[in-house]
């Protein structure tokens, strides 16, 4: 038996890359580097940025005014990446990020988007009935909190700076990083204390 045929999609990709290279638009090395940096990116980068902002007010100001510079402080290369905007939750205001047009997501600091973020259901509902979506996630906002849905439609990528939960006084950056989940960084969830810590 002969070897299985290479999938058509990969053959198409090979031709596409070869055509881009032939025109001098991109090199295979650049593609490999971008692939490697995307594979390295994970929500822990965004979580650490949040933890540092909670501990260091000058870093917090940098994060809110120039997200890309704040990411580079964490060793993330933002060259060629879209600008990063960070929106701060505060008492009375909660941000929820969606991309109704496609799946724009701050990949440089969160990695690949989860499948639900790209689903038609999330994209259609987050912008129309955000409170119902949050309720299904089990995310209960304090009474009197306004919801601000951020539809990521163009050149920026948006991340949420959640509020630091009570009960984390004196925690280290590592401890704080551990409670900031991917979902909290786009606003579908809130940072939660581990059950043991919350019970103390």
């Amino acid at each position: 038996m002969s070897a299985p045929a290479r999938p058509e999609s990969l053959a198409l990709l090979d031709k596409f890359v070869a055509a881009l290279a032939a025109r001098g638009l991109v090199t295979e090395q650049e593609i490999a580097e971008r692939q490697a940096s995307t594979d390295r990116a994970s929500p822990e980068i965004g979580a650490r940025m949040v933890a540092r902002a909670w501990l260091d007010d000058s870093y917090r100001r940098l994060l809110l005014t120039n997200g890309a510079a704040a990411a580079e402080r964490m060793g993330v290369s933002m060259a060629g990446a879209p600008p990063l905007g960070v929106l701060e939750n505060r008492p009375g205001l909660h941000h929820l990020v969606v991309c109704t047009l496609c799946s724009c997501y701050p990949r440089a600091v969160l990695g690949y988007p989860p499948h639900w973020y790209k689903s038609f259901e999330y994209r259609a509902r987050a912008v129309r009935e955000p409170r119902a979506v949050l309720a299904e996630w089990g995310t209960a906002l304090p009474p009197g909190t306004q919801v601000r849905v951020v539809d990521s439609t163009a050149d920026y990528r948006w991340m949420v700076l959640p509020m630091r939960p009570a009960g984390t006084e004196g925690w280290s950056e590592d401890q704080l990083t551990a409670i900031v989940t991917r979902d909290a960084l786009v606003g579908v969830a809130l940072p939660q204390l581990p059950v043991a810590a919350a019970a103390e």
Partner: protein
Amino acid sequence: MSAAFAPGTRIRVKDDWPERRGPCHIRTPHYLRGREGVIQAVLGEFPNPEDLAFARPAPRRPLYHVLFEQPPVWAEGESGDSLLVEIFEHWLEPATPSQEAA
């Protein structure tokens, strides 16, 4: 090209539907066409995606963060909730004074 609208300016998204006229690529959500909002921030200038998508020369256009009240858009929702959306300048026009006064 500098930004025509300052933060705080009340604007309207043009009630334009280029997708009905032929092939196009637009980054302005359908649910905001004809809606009024307030400029929240000037985000900078970016090549017009409507040209980029067709490999045409793409002039840089000012991009804004625009804030809209959420309930009027869907005729449902909770008062005070809002939508914050990136919209290019060529999709914006000043809000009509009569509606502003109303």
